[in-house]
């Protein structure tokens, strides 16, 4: 069967679609612009690999990988792990902040009830 597109185009189009979706999510205020950097970077990488597929072959040879597509999969898994770890780091930071805000709320409520109690005593 004849191919509709050359395979480089397919990869590049996937990258462009990802970049478009990210921009759309920012535009609709569903994704913080700070969180978009990673995804735009990944999309750009996919586009580059689509238009210049031999780049990964050259890297594969340089790193001693006989079958270069394995390198793409390994790098992909590595990037996903890094992303998940950074998400857990961010969650820990947010949890610390949330706990302290919760504590502060209880403290301020306690102080407020004391002030109100003193007012009633007068």
């Amino acid at each position, binding site marked *: 069967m004849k191919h509709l597109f050359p395979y480089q185009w397919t990869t590049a189009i996937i990258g462009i679609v990802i970049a478009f979706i990210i921009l759309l999510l920012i535009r609709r205020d569903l994704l913080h612009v700070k969180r978009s950097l990673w995804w735009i970077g990944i999309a750009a990488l996919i586009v580059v690999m689509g238009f210049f597929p031999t780049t990964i072959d050259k890297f594969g040879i340089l790193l001693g990988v006989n079958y270069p597509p394995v390198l793409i999969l390994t790098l992909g898994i590595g990037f996903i792990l890094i992303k998940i770890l950074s998400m857990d780091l961010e969650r820990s930071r947010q949890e*610390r902040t949330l*706990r302290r805000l919760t504590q502060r709320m*209880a403290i301020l409520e306690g102080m407020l009830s004391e002030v109100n109690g003193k007012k009633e005593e007068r």
Partner: protein
Amino acid sequence: MQRSHIAVLIPAWDEETTVASVVANLKKDIDCDVIVINDASMDGTVAQAERAGAKVLSLPVNLGAWGAIQTGIRYALKQGYRQVITMDADGQHDSAFIPHLLAPIQEGTANIVIGSCTDRGSMARKIAWMLFRWITGLDIKDITSGFRSYDSSAMILLASREATLLEYQDVGVLMLLMQSGLRIREIEVKMQPRQVGSSKVFSSWFKVAEYMILTMILCSSHIMKRKRRLSATQRGSL
């Protein structure tokens, strides 16, 4: 209202059956202010504690025992207390021992005093304590006792952001105190068995396993950490 210079902090999560008697006994025995930190209880803990004469701080969501104690410490610092006692709401700790917990701090020989009761606990618990002591180098017999007194320097450290992600008032708290060069002392106390119900920290074998694994990871992550002094950031982040 004239404040006592000592606050007793009692974290409470669904402890309506015991909290009132614990507060009443304290009020009877010691000249202190009792602060109950209600850890999002669903029962009548708040009403019982207030009726018995305690000041109640209510957390809107459950933060666990350490989160509640830290809330109490932060509140105590804001209110000008320079010494706090922590104890459980289940009636295990005897208020008669509080003067013994306070004495070393008032004499200036310790920053933290732990009321130890090594008689309690199963063989498995004692083996766990031994293991944690061996990994961390902590020279403390009862590392899980919640019956403690803290002076102002320990309070400042424990109120900091650095202590916020701890789960329990045990190994993590003790390592933080030790690494900051604060002096920890232990005194022997008698503890009663829980009056009602069972431990909430060790409510199932799954919880025990989770506690053991998390504490082991925490201990391992602190190996070789150097001693340091209280930083300006810690002092300023109350």
